[in-house]
């Protein structure tokens, strides 16, 4: 019997009981659908995380934080550590220079991470948003920051900003981000009576200012504007991040305030002399983190060892990758079990269908044997038929999940702008999933059909021909 005959026989036989065949296939379709959607979603999310890391050249970067005991602080490679801890060694300029001179370090930049503005908005718009600013040394080669539009930051840029994808979406420029270039952003910043070292000086307190005066100025809002010079390319995470020059960040982080001097005249009435004091946060507390770029990815480990030897906290993209892989392996097992159960149920459906088919076609089996079919031919025939059920179920499941993926992506794109994951990358259908699923459901069909097929093949032809 030729291969084509198996196909044609199983087609004809399955077409005989259309409703039953369809129901069996639907069960497999649902099973494979759940497996495919789960796997493709997982793959997509994981892939976009990895893409993001790769895009940032993260696999050659070592992040140095001040606290060695808080190595994994959950932040991404560039946001981790914002200088608010007092543990460990301060990441100041001296530390920066030491770290930069370590073996195999090609370049380095200090990061002033996590500067939170109270609000941020596009000038002329009412909609306000939260946003945080990452600052770094623009002339560094550490970041490969891919841009959607505009230019990168320069060393002498002061009130210039590169905005992230969230900002672009919020103000409706997703389709024409280049139109944002040159527009201005307005930040509101509260410093509790202090002022940043940018813009007007704080109001000089009157002589012997009372409590009420101070309290009234506690909530002073400082309006800071910046020109948009670039749009960061959408990446899987951190599209909420906006980037500025660290020199400007240092000015913004420097608190300027009036302080009264000690009374000098001990005899007469105390005459206070008000003087301006500047409190540079970066000098006082150090940078949030320092990022080192290795001259080669394979030297990442030795740099990390050297850094922890100096007593700093250190994390690499490999750590993150390990973590990502761990998490996704866990989720994968859970989802795999769920998908497995639905496929198991579908397999029972196939067994049921095939057992019924062998009973219904007992006489036919007898006739085929009389016409020269071997036991093996009968066995192959029924197994092939069951495998076909699995094959079509898998194929339909694949088509359906592709459709759902497409539609879902469109819907998510429209409504789920708050999810910091670019949805166009989610629900991926790599070739191994496509072929794997169809092969797997076909195998399930084949194995489910094996029992009934063996039973059919064992039938005595004489008994089969007499079967009523």
């Amino acid at each position, binding site marked *: *019997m*030729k291969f*084509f*005959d198996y196909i044609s*026989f199983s087609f*004809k036989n399955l077409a*005989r009981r259309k409703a039953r065949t369809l129901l069996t296939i639907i069960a497999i379709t649902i099973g494979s659908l759940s497996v495919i959607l789960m796997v493709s979603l997982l793959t997509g999310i994981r892939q976009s995380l990895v893409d993001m890391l790769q895009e940032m050249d993260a696999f050659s970067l070592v992040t140095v934080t001040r606290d060695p005991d808080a190595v994994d602080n959950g932040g991404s490679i560039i946001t981790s550590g914002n200088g608010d801890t007092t543990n460990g060694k301060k990441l100041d300029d001296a530390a920066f220079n030491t770290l930069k001179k370590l073996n195999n370090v090609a370049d380095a930049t200090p990061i002033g991470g996590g500067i939170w503005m109270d609000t941020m908005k596009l000038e002329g718009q009412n909609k306000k948003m939260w946003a945080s600013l990452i600052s770094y040394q623009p002339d560094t080669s550490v970041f490969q920051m891919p841009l959607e539009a505009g230019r990168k930051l320069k060393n002498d840029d002061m009130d210039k900003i590169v905005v992230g994808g969230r900002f672009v979406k919020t103000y409706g420029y997703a389709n024409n981000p280049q139109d944002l270039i040159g527009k201005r952003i307005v930040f509101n910043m509260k410093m509790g009576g202090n002022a940043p070292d940018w813009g007007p000086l704080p109001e000089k307190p009157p002589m012997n200012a009372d409590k009420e005066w101070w309290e009234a100025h506690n909530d002073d809002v400082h309006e800071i504007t910046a020109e948009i010079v670039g749009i960061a390319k959408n990446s899987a995470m951190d599209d909420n991040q906006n980037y500025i020059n660290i020199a400007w960040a240092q000015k913004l982080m420097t608190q300027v305030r009036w302080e009264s001097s000690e009374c000098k005249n001990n005899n007469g009435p105390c005459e206070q002399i008000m003087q301006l004091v500047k409190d540079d946060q970066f000098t006082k507390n150090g940078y949030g983190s320092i990022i080192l770029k290795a001259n080669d990815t394979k030297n990442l480990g030795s740099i990390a060892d050297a850094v922890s030897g100096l007593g700093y906290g250190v994390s690499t993209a490999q750590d993150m990758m390990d973590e990502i892989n761990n998490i996704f392996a866990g989720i994968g097992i859970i989802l795999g079990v769920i998908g497995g159960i639905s496929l198991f149920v579908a397999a029972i459906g196939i067994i049921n269908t095939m057992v019924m088919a062998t009973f219904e076609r007992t*006489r*036919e089996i*007898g*006739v*085929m*044997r*009389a*016409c*020269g*079919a*071997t*036991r*093996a*031919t009968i066995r192959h025939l029924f197994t092939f038929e069951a495998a076909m059920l699995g094959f079509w179920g898998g194929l339909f499941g694949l088509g359906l999940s592709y459709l759902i993926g497409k539609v879902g992506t469109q819907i998510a794109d429209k409504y789920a702008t708050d999810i910091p994951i670019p949805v166009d990358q989610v629900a991926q259908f790599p070739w191994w999933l496509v072929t794997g699923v169809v092969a797997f459901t076909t195998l399930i069909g084949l194995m489910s059909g094996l029992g009934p097929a063996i039973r059919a093949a064992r039938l*005595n*032809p*004489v008994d089969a*021909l007499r079967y009523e």
Partner: protein
Amino acid sequence: MIELKDVSKIYKLGGEEINALDHVNLKVDKGDFIAIVGPSGSGKSTLANVIGGLDIPDSGEVLIDEHDISKVNDEILSKYRNKKVGFIFQTFNLQPTYSALENVMVPLVFAGMSWGERKKRALECLKAVGLEDRINHLPNQLSGGQRQRVCIARALVNNPEVIIADEPTGNLDSKKGAEIVDLLKSLNQNAGITLIVITHDLSIAKQAKRVIEIHDGRIK
């Protein structure tokens, strides 16, 4: 030539042993036409099935051209049924969802013949039984006589040496039955096919060259 030597077959039916064939010896020459007669349960179907390679005896030898088929494996036995034997059944046993042509083509599928050849050969056989204008009809669109003709065409399609017909006229009226017997007889006379017919009908048995009467598994 078919030769049965000391063939026995015992069935168990509800704890009772039935001697379907009891030390049977039989020779059938090539081109012979034998009728097997006897009461129900006498073992005549079993005898035919053993000759046709559908059933395997418990003991004895079934020699087909001096090859014993009672001890060969399933593949060889299936090939024997496929190439050398054609079966005709009382209830026709046609595939209800296949057309007349497709039904006739079934043995050729197992013979591994190409599709074009299958169709050509099946058409020849349908023509030989006078059904060339019914090739695309389903069995339920055909009369009983026509169905039995399709069955004969199916039995003929692999150029068998033997045709075994188990009550071929049992489900037909006497006129249609006579036509079928004439057709089988002409195959025996013109094509030299050995014909073994199991029947209750004495008018058929009378036309055979040899009548074998069987009782309780023994040839009289």
